[in-house]
């Protein structure tokens, strides 16, 4: 299998790059890079829903932030073992997702968008009001630096490497899923849910599974962010987090799984640059969003990929056309003739 060999080589090259970066970058840039990787996992998990299943959610921060709080509370009250904490936080998030997804999937299209927004804001509201447990708008401070057995991940370099490992594993699993028969099934649902039912697929169940898988990875990312920041604040649950992730997916290229990584690079770096000069990051976010939808509706990754493929193809004869997703519609507008 030449395709899979290439993918493994690409993954290894990326691992080597991460190790080099962990030695070369200053602590400040390591923190920034860690943030990029965390948001990349978050955005990729969302791409499974937005780009592949055709379900544009505006409430994905619910999983991200919920897991953050679970991480903070678990680390403060039970154990600070990184593996245990992430495991527990992801498990709790998964259980929450069982209910959240069942409620959200009752609607389609714009109603789905609104429902996910409403549900996630309910969770945000709880975190905001329940001061005794969550610290309210002050957040949950003092999340200790993580520990794995005898190893303390106190310095930014080791935490960066751990996050990099999580990123590589998440990306590998998600890429495997979207290229599998199950992944094709999700894309079929994106294109036409009514045809999928007519072919014998239980559309709802597939969408539900996609949601749960997505929640697992969003949860893992949220857990990492809690450790990264040392504090869990309601911001992590807020609609702006959801919108940022959605922007990363659309900017990078929805339905590509690689694109959201580039989306995360661009958005996190821009956030860093913009917030040096002004506090109006959310305004900038809105402007970028409009620019992307108007100027690069396919996102930045697909054109990059096409360029590289064209370069590599010289002398190889006409190869099978690569299926390149067409422009993703703005979130909320689902494709297909649904009843």
């Amino acid at each position, binding site marked *: *299998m030449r*395709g*899979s060999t290439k993918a493994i080589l690409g993954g290894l090259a990326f691992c080597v790059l991460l190790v080099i970066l962990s030695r070369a970058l200053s602590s400040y840039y390591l923190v920034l890079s860690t943030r990029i990787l965390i948001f990349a996992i978050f955005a990729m998990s969302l791409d499974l829903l937005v780009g592949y299943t055709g379900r544009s959610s505006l409430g994905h921060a619910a999983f991200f932030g919920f897991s953050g709080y679970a991480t903070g509370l678990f680390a403060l009250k039970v154990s600070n073992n990184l593996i245990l904490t992430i495991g527990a936080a992801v498990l709790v998030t998964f259980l929450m997702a069982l209910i959240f997804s069942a409620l959200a999937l009752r609607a389609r299209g714009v109603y789905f968008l609104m429902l996910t927004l409403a549900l996630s804001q309910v969770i945000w509201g709880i975190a905001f009001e329940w001061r005794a447990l969550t610290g309210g708008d002050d957040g949950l401070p003092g999340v200790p630096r993580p520990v794995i057995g005898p190893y303390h991940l106190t310095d930014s370099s080791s935490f960066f490497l751990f996050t990099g490992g999580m990123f590589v594993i998440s990306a590998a699993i998600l890429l*495997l*899923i979207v*290229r*599998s*028969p*199950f*992944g*094709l*099934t999700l*894309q*079929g649902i994106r*294109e*036409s849910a*009514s*045809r*999928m*039912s*007519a*072919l*014998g*697929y*239980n*559309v709802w169940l597939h969408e539900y599974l996609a949601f749960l898988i997505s929640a697992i990875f969003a949860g893992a990312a949220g857990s990492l962010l809690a450790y990264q920041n040392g504090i869990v604040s309601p911001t992590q649950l807020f609609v702006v987090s959801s919108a940022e992730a959605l922007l990363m997916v659309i900017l990078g290229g929805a339905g590509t799984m690689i694109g959201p990584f580039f989306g995360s690079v661009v958005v996190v770096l821009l956030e860093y640059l913009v917030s040096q000069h002004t506090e109006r990051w959310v305004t900038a976010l809105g402007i970028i969003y409009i620019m992307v939808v108007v100027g690069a509706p396919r996102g930045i990754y697909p054109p990059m990929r096409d360029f590289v493929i064209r370069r590599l193809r010289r002398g190889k004869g006409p190869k*099978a*056309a690569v*299926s390149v*997703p*067409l422009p993703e519609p703005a979130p909320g507008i689902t*494709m297909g*003739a649904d*009843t």
Partner: protein
Amino acid sequence: MAVSTPALSLERISKHFGALKAVEQVSMQIQQGERRAVIGPNGAGKTTLFHVVSGVLPPTAGAIHVFGNDVTRLPTHRRIRLGMARTFQITNLFRRLTVEHNVYLALQGLTPTKWQMFRPQGSVKELVQQADRLLEEWNLEDRRHALVTELSYGEQRALEIMLAVCQKPKLLLLDEPTAGLSPAETATAAETIRRLPRDISMLLIEHDMDVVFDLCDTMTVMHLGEVLATGDPASVRGNPQVQEIYLGEAIEA
């Protein structure tokens, strides 16, 4: 075989939208291997009836049996598992996927393969071989990597039928398979349908009378949601009421 259960049996099916009686007290039995056409002017309730039979819309009243199983309250995908398949009047394909992927989706719909998450699509050998054979049979092998949006309308209509047929259904619902096709393409499509295995029972909505007479054993005429006449094509054609609705308003007091 002893007296076999009908492939499809509708008992007094009604579908109302508020005050509108789209389908009213329709009863129909399609024997195994029978090819039945449903005709009628626009607004007769044919497509609504199709939606009720395939499970897209729940009936207001009545019962549906598929090969003797009561499916009245079953969702679409459960009916499909009983050997039913359908096509759509308005082409309903996976537009931004390749022809090959469309076929894979149809082939794996009724197999456990669709749940596999951790192996590449192309590594399921059996599926690939089946798809190869089908694409060759349907003269689409050189279009295999084309996106559906790149196909001609005629090719899309062919794929529409192919997706329904490749699961080897025992009961096939065809909703205007020749809609929008040129006369030449219509002839090709009709030929394709005629050559399908004789043991597939068929329910066909069609406007083209040549196609109907060519393909079907029996006909049901619907008008304003109700069944007007049922029988073999020749006798239905001779029915004065049928002539009336097709040839113009009767001279009524």
